[in-house]
Every structure is written in structure tokens, then in C-alpha cells.
């Protein structure tokens, strides 16, 4: 309901500002407890849950992205008679962009929603209150370890996605389009530098932070019973997805500005 003298649009804008401020304060709370989070006993189970259990789906997605990319790229490159450069095309796309983004999106769906739902359930069933009553800070005990797990495991999963993407591209290029494996790997290696890997993994690191932040925030601020748990899981995924896309744009822009300065060094002065 609009307050007197304030239009519904202004009200919505104020609510949005309020929400953004809430997320910023939540992020500050997490940053204050990062030291406790990394030492938490729950880190190992979380790494298993977020990392090991997500590995299958990451490997599967990575392989198919590489294969699809090879098909699409081959159509373009064949027109210029340079199908031998498929390795370069697939590897650069996967390492710089698709690997981190897809690994992050998969984890946002699989892990972000699960984290939000778990924390929301704990909030509804007063388990979070019970923690506080025992003098335990729920941010340090519940949120910080999950944030760390996302922060560390999205880049790790990205490495696996990249690896499978390269293999998927290699499989399609050599088996379907009869590109010589030597040419595929030669161009892949010659044109992919440490800077490309660093760009991709840096993005993954930021994506992991965004997943940890939004998933935990949605879970810890959930209300409204079972419906609230479902709502928090859905809104966590949406928020994580939007954050990944927005971060990808700005990080991409930033890296593209830095590349002219760093790429000559990274490419051995070429």
C-alpha cells in the first residue's frame, strides 16, 4: 500500500534501495566472519555437497557445450577454409566465457537453490534462533562456510567444465569434421594463454561469490512457511543468474580494456 504522498513507483524504488542496502550489510557481515567460516567443521561436507555431487552435471554440460560450439564454429570456419582452427575457436570461447558462465549457472541452479532452501527451512523451524540462543553467530556458522564453498568451488568446477569442453570440441572436430588432431591441439595451445585462463577463472571466482551471497541472503531472510522456502529457492536462482550475467558483462568489459596491455606479454610479445 502506498504511503501518503509517495507514489507506488517511488515506494517500489524505496523498497528496492532498502533491499540493496540489506544485501550490502549482509555482505559486510559475511566478510567479517570469513575467518571463522573457513575454519568451520562444516566445510568438508559442504565441499562434498557443492563440489563432488555437482561434478557429474558439470562434466556433462561442459562436454556438450564444447561439442555444440565445435558444430557452430565449423560452419563459420569452413566457409573460409580454415576448419583446422576449430581448436582455437572452441578453446578460447570455452576458457574465456562459456566454461565459467555455464559452470556458474549450473551451480546457481543446483547449489544456490539448495543452499537457500536449506537455510530458509532452518530459519522457519527456528534452528537459526536456536543457534543464536547457544551464543553461536549464524553468519559465522552457517553462512560464511557456504560462501567460502561457493567461492572456491565455482572456479574449481570451471576448470573441469573447460577441460570437458575442450575434449568435446576435439571429439566433434576430429570425428565428425575430420580435422587432424595435431591441428586442433596446435591451434588450441598456440592461441590460448595464461591470461585467457586467468580471465575465465577470475570471472568464476566472482560468480561463486555472487552465488554464495545471494543464495545465503535469500535463505536467511525467508519467511512464510513452506511457500516461503520454495520462494527463497526460486528467487535465489533468479538473483544468482542475473548477478552472473551482469558481472559477466562488466568483468568482460574490464578484461577487454586490460587485454591490450597484458595480452602482448601473455602471448610472448607477439
Amino acid at each position, binding site marked *: *500500500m502506498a504511503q501518503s504522498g509517495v507514489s507506488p513507483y517511488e515506494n517500489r524504488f524505496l523498497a528496492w534501495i532498502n533491499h540493496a542496502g540489506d544485501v550490502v550489510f549482509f555482505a559486510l557481515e559475511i566478510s567479517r566472519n570469513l575467518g571463522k567460516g573457513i575454519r568451520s567443521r562444516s566445510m568438508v561436507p559442504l565441499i562434498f555437497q557443492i563440489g563432488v555431487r555437482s561434478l557429474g552435471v558439470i562434466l556433462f554440460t561442459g562436454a556438450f557445450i564444447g561439442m555444440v560450439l565445435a558444430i557452430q564454429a565449423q560452419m563459420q570456419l569452413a566457409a573460409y577454409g580454415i576448419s583446422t582452427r576449430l581448436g582455437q575457436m572452441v578453446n578460447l570461447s570455452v576458457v574465456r566465457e562459456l566454461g565459467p558462465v555455464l559452470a556458474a549457472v549450473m551451480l546457481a541452479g543446483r547449489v544456490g537453490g539448495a543452499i537457500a532452501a536449506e537455510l530458509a527451512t*532452518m530459519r522457519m*523451524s*527456528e*534452528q537459526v*534462533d*536456536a543457534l*543464536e*540462543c*547457544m*551464543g*553461536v*553467530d549464524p553468519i559465522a*556458522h552457517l553462512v560464511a562456510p557456504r560462501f567460502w564453498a561457493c567461492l572456491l568451488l565455482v572456479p574449481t568446477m570451471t576448470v573441469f567444465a573447460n577441460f570437458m569442453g575442450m575434449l568435446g570440441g576435439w571429439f566433434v572436430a576430429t570425428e565428425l569434421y575430420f580435422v587432424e588432431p595435431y591441428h586442433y591441439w596446435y591451434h588450441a595451445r598456440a592461441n590460448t594463454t595464461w591470461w585467457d585462463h586467468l580471465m575465465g577463472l577470475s570471472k568464476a571466482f566472482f560468480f561463486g561469490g555472487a552465488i554464495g551471497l545471494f543464495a545465503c541472503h535469500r535463505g536467511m531472510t525467508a*519467511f*512464510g*512457511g513452506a*511457500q*516461503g522456502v520454495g520462494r527463497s529457492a526460486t528467487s535465489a536462482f533468479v538473483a544468482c543468474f542475473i548477478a552472473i550475467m551482469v558481472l559477466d558483462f562488466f568483468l568482460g568489459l574490464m578484461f577487454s580494456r586490460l587485454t591490450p596491455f597484458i595480452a602482448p606479454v601473455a602471448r610472448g610479445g607477439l
Partner: protein
Amino acid sequence: MTLESDPDLPVVGEGGHIPSTLGAQPLLEMRSVSMRFGQTGVLRDISLGIAAGSSVAIIGESGCGKSVFLKLLIGLLTPSSGSVHFGGTSLAEMRASDLMRLRMRFGYLFQSGALFDSLSVFENIAFGLRQKNKGKEREIDEIVRERLTEVGLPLTALHRMPSELSGGQRKRVGLARALAMNPEIMLYDEPTTGLDPIMSDIINELILRVGESHPGMTSLVITHEMKTVFRVADRVIMLQPLALVPPGEAQVLFDGTVGALRLSPDPRVQEFIRGDASRRIQSASERDALIHTPLDMPPGGLHP
């Protein structure tokens, strides 16, 4: 086996017990406390004190703010206005770390037990002790077994998960978990709600026994059930839902001894004691009030 109280926090007497007198100050105090969730008011201008060592029951209809009252006392919620004091110190003025340590002096039995569902019964009871490094693993093991026995559960329950327990067993484990920290103040949030009469009686007996075996412990029990009130309390505070409070009247409808409660001339108190809603049902104007609670609740219930 006893656990030491925190020496840095105020009002600890000798032997780990809170002294029964704190000058003129009550142990816990609310000063003009009001609480709103968005547009919905729950508590308005509540001022009262709880003496150390007393056993207080807080009663009232659903939605009158009993659980909110308890969460305000322990600092889980912050009042919209007014202040909550522990031993004369305002909770709002305490540093977060001090408030955390203060909470460890409370035991809280939640409505649902609020057991950590990823931990076994043993781990649930040991949780607070481990987090605060209260003793070595062997001592913790001993405390856990003692507390489980105290609440009348067999030691075979130690390695069961909360999902394998009945409602009554969950509450008993919740009580054992609260007692493991050797609290000075016990807060019970509807300890018998949802239990059959036999199990309710067992829980009431446990609350009584806890009071007897921990002399000096202050207890606050939120309940709808008069049997619980008459068994465990020496003072009763009755709240009325804010929507039903007549203009100019306080939200605290009754504050006195159990004996005085039985003799209260207020028909609303007597109706609540007897569980008799016939006057309301017959009265057209009050029939609207009868269903006030769900309509006044914000979507999704009350939340900060």
C-alpha cells in the same frame, strides 16, 4: 557437573547462580516495549519485570505476542520502541559479542524443539558445549548422557536422528540441549503444544523437576494450557491480542499469582481459564473479534 558462568557479564552471584535480589532491580525487565512487524502491531507499551528465581507463566490467546515477548527478552528480536534490560543493562546497548555470551546463560525450549536436523541427538545436545569448548570430549559425553537421562530418554536415543523421534521426544531432546549449557534462565515456548495429554503431563513434570534440581533458576513458560500454568508457575502474566485491547486499556490483562488468577473477577480471564468462548460466539460484535488474528496477520505470518 556444572559449567561455569561467564565472569565478564553482569549479575552473577556466587556458585554460578543469579542472586535473588539485585538491589531494587528485576533480573529481566521490559520498559515501555512495543513491537510491530510492518503495519501489524503485536505488543504495545509493555512494562514489567521478572525477578530472579521466579517461575512465570505467560498466557494469552494465539497471536497475542507471547513468543515475540520471549524472543524480545533474549534479544532475538529488537523492540520497535522501548527497551529490554538484563540486570539493569539494556540489551540494545550491549555489544554483539556480549549479547551472544549473555544468551548462553539462557536455555530456550522452542515450540518444535528446533533440533538441528542434520545432527544426531548426541550431536544436538553436545552442540553448544562443543561450540564454546566447554570441556573435553569425554566430559561433553558425560554431560550429554546426564541430560538425556534427566529428561527421561533412554541412552539408545543418542545416535538417532531428529526425524526418527516423536514430537514429545523432540521436545525432550530440545530440553536436554538447553539444560546441557547449565542455564540460569529457562524459557519454554509452548512446551506442551501438539502433545497428547499424557505426554503433556510428562513435559510438565519435567519442567517442575528441572526447577527443583536447578535451585535459583528463573523460568518463563509460554503456554495456552492452564494445567501447565497451575502446575509450574508462581506468577502469571496474561496478554490480550492488541486488536482486542479496548482504548485506554493496557495489553497486560492480568499480572499476579496463580491463586489470584483463579479468583480474578475479569470475565475475559475466567473465560480463558475455562476455555469458554460462548459469550463471544453469542455476541455479534465480538464475533468479528473472534476471527481477528488471521485477518490481521501480514501475508506469510509475522517476521522481522
